[in-house]
């Protein structure tokens, strides 16, 4: 018992005091900024492993981007990745970053259903479904609840059963073999419920897009409430995105 208390004392405070303002250490690749610099756009396009880059003018789709950073290495004056991790949004189009655009990625309040802020602000229970995920987004979603990021302080928690959940968080490109379990899990979640796509694989299929081993029909039939880009997602991207989705808005 005494030893346990000693360990507690030695550990001190580990949580990030303000997750909305925390700085990420090192050279994190978050929201990119694209300059007006003239470059060989054809070459730029062929570098991108997932076709996330479009030309004239250049844009990057964060829903397809694997954040490998190779475009920025090849054309450092054209593309620069900032450490801005707040890149989650509820509007698929807002994931596309255009040339010359250097503003935060935000949610569109008009797209947020009224019951989301009425019912989930202050308490949101989520059921996670890994559908072909490579376990990197899963590790980061687990990290959201550790003592550093401590997402539980906002009443946001992952629960064991879809019956206890207010929504599902999907990771992975949705394999054919997980298509039915995913549907069953979603159906078992009581209304009203939300769907969050976490990571590039879930949002667009990522590097797996087009594989015959996938079945992404679920996404055609359901409305997505939040897109969280990343490969894997950063816990701060996820937490800030969810907080923005459920926060109380006036009017």
């Amino acid at each position, binding site marked *: 018992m005494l030893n346990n208390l000693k360990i507690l004392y030695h550990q001190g405070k580990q949580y990030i005091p303000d997750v909305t303002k925390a700085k990420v250490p090192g050279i994190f690749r978050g929201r990119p900024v694209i300059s007006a610099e003239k470059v060989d756009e054809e070459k730029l396009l062929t570098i991108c492993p997932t076709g996330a880059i479009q030309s004239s003018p250049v844009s990057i789709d964060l829903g397809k981007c694997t954040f490998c950073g190779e475009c920025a290495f090849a054309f450092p004056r054209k593309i620069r990745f900032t450490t801005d991790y707040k890149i989650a949004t509820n509007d698929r189009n807002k994931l596309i970053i255009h040339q010359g655009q250097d503003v935060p990625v935000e949610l569109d309040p008009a797209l947020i259903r009224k019951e989301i802020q009425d019912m989930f602000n202050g308490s949101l229970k989520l059921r996670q479904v890994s559908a072909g995920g490579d376990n*990197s987004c899963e590790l980061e979603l687990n990290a959201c609840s550790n003592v550093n990021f401590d997402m539980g302080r906002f009443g946001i928690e992952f629960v064991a059963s879809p019956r206890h959940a207010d929504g599902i968080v999907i990771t992975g490109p949705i394999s054919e073999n997980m298509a039915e379990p995913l549907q069953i899990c979603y159906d078992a979640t009581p209304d009203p419920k939300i769907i969050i796509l976490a990571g590039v694989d879930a949002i667009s299929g990522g590097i797996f897009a087009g594989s015959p081993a996938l079945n992404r029909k679920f996404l055609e039939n359901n409305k997505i409430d939040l897109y969280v880009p990343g490969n894997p997602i950063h816990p701060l991207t996820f937490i800030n995105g969810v907080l923005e989705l459920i926060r109380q808005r006036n009017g």
Partner: protein
Amino acid sequence: MDYISIKNNGCIPLTSIPELEYEKFLASNVFELMSETPNHCVNYYGFPDNGKIRLICCIANDETHLIHVSSTVVVPGVQYSSFTAHNLAFERFEREIHENFDIAYHNHPWLKPVRYAANRVEKTKTIANYPFYSIASEELHEVGVGPIHAGIIEPGHFRFICNGEQILHLEIQLGYQHRGIEKLFLEKKTLLQRTILAESITGDTVVGHTTAFANLWESMCEFKPECDLQFSRTLALELERIAVHTGDLSGMCTDIAYQLGSSVFGRLRTPIINYFQQWCGNRVSKSLIRAGKSNFPFTQSLASTLTEVFDKYEPDFNEMCAELFRMPSALSRFEKTGVVSEADIRKIGTVGLSARMNGVNRDIRLSHPHDFYHEIQHQPIVKHHGDVYSRAQMRRQEIGQSMGYIRNLMKDLPDINTNRPELESPQPNVFGISLVEGWRGEICHCAITDEKGDLRHYKIKDPSFHNWLALAIAVRNNEISDFPISNKSFDFSYSGHDL
């Protein structure tokens, strides 16, 4: 000769691999090679060749540092005598060959589908109607868990047959994570795309799998990676080991409801993976390893930062371990739970932690060294009880060992080469093999190129492919409530298995 012997990261003309009659192929691999203790199978798979199927078997000798490669040609639909009837280590390999190519075996115990792959022959069989082993008895009941589990983990289905609270039998059904990744290696044509695929095989072993891919690709291009590339890969492999082992100790504390251990080990993982972010911009080290180059050279300032990280990590880690490993309530859950005997390990052919946990010294860093492991003189940590406690102890000690290796490596940083030639394309019509000791165990990637030097076939084997059966054996006669701690203590990969 019945086989050609090559070293790790060796690359040979495809035609130099002896092609044997099937019966001779079986006798050579099963009765001769596998009857010697230092030998174990690192890969056995098939690929389409002129309308037939060519099987390639790779048996590694852990003492001579050689890999013995042989092949045969088989025809779909024809009945063959199975390897598995004589050696259980081939069980899953033959099931995969049967599932993907319709090769029949008359004496295989049960040719169940491995992962219901998109490229399977029998499309009418689906994952929803998997043929589970069952026992008709009024005394027994079945418990089904998954594919979606209670926590945030990958999907898989566990079917228990229980006698009251006691597990009589467990069958593990996988395949839910199948994304067709091996086929994508052929369809995606750029090196970067293939590297991203390698990083996505399993996101908890990014360094391990990407190193295997990079080493294999470079060997096929006849590119000898310079010291700085090898140095980074070795250091990153050991760092990944520290990160995941720490996280696993946290998970094991969670599963015995020891909150303090769970929190402290959980938060100790954070500075290690944050260090990866400082090094390469990604917490799971995606983008760090690249064939033929590095975008993130390891500098003196990175070395100083890592020393600081370790200096803070070590006292906290040691204090937490000292408490956990002497606490009776923890030890009573760890000791004699989830035991696998040495005999069973040898029979199943497990690798990595799951071999070293009970007397089987199987470690690629020692037996088939690559990168800087030639210089490290690695001495594997081997335990002798095969229980949860052994697996916990190994993690604790391997973390200490890895930190020691990294500290030693950092005493002498290699010069960073800033003027590297571009990689040429791989040689035509070659076979290459790469073995890497990831934190779980032995990773094996094999590739074959066509006449133009493009990929003709790519084969990935995660250590979990050998190891999953060990979990099913370990939990027999345990209480079902001990299953989570057993499962976590192994921590096998679903995505690495399902591909």
